[in-house]
């Protein structure tokens, strides 16, 4: 018996994986896309705001100047590559320099992972809404150039649902009060998913 025959005999002990039907594949595809979108959103939310004040001169990586939407305003920002394959974004918020760390990966056709570029991350930041509480206690949602106050729109469970539209594309946000001054939110482009929520207000950029 040759080594090849031996090898094939040994690995023939492995069971075949379960049979996949095309209909099932379509269902998996839909779920898969949703999971990818959710995973990207979670990755962004987890790192935004994690940084403190930093200065561009302290950072050694390659710098890129970008313009992104932050707090409803077009903001000039410096992106500096960090050791983790992500970027440190630094911007001037009027009363001093602020920074945050941000990174992400894309999955290519061969299943390989590639770190997102500063431009790709900026596009992701632009397409993601943000929720902030100001010094007066008012809660605001920002999306591109839009700014909407939602302080009084939370239901008895501390949940607010809102639809925002930019250049014909709608996003559906569900914002939840987690505690004193803390909010979490989910963002989706799927109206069916958004239909599960209760109070809805609609804003757009027209």
């Amino acid at each position, binding site marked *: 018996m040759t080594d090849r025959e031996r*090898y094939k005999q*040994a690995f023939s002990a492995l069971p075949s994986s379960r049979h996949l039907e095309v209909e099932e594949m379509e269902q998996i595809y839909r779920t898969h896309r949703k999971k990818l979108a959710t995973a990207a959103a979670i990755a962004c939310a987890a790192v935004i705001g994690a940084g403190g004040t930093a200065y561009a001169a302290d950072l050694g990586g390659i710098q890129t100047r970008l313009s992104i939407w932050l707090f409803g305003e077009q903001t000039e920002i410096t992106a500096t590559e960090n050791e983790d394959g992500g970027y440190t974004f630094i911007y001037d918020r009027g009363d001093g320099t602020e920074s945050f760390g941000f990174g992400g990966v894309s999955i290519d056709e061969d299943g390989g992972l590639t770190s997102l570029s500063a431009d790709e991350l900026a596009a992701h930041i632009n397409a993601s809404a943000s929720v902030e509480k100001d010094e007066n206690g008012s809660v605001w949602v920002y999306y591109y150039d839009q700014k909407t106050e939602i302080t009084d729109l939370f239901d008895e469970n501390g949940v607010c649902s809102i639809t925002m539209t930019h250049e014909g594309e709608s996003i559906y946000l569900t914002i939840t009060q987690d505690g004193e001054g803390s909010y979490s939110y989910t963002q989706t482009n799927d109206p069916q998913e958004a239909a599960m929520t209760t109070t809805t207000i609609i804003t757009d950029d027209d």
Partner: protein
Amino acid sequence: MRLSVQKLAESCQSSLFAAAFSICQNAQDAEDVVQDTFVQYYTTKKEFEDEQHIRAWLIRVAVNKAKNVTRTFWRRNRISIEDYMETLVFETPEAENLFETVMQLPEKYRIVIHLYYYEDYTVGEIAGILKLSESNVKIRLSRGRAMLKEVLKEEWNND
């Protein structure tokens, strides 16, 4: 050229599972890899030259996905390869011994050995699938074989 997922599943599913398993060493992870690989084929707009091209692409995707699984921090709670092997039925004690020895090889040698001996790919084809140089594949193949020979002795010819 495109083939239906159904047809590919019939001809390639076992191969993809074996390739993924040789990297993940976990049946559930390998199942997920196979499923994700077919989803990727189902969704890609890539055009293929022939069935061999599709097969090589599927193997490459499965290998990459399986590597990603092994690097994932939050891997599922998994049963050990030893426990899983107790559920497998081998034709001979030598076959079991060979399987176990291959599973103990470092990953980079294991996948090259698997593609060469199970999938019958040439060194050049393996280099293409794994995006390695041919000389690198030859070195890994040679070292993997030497490790198998050292453990298996006369049960492995090094042919």
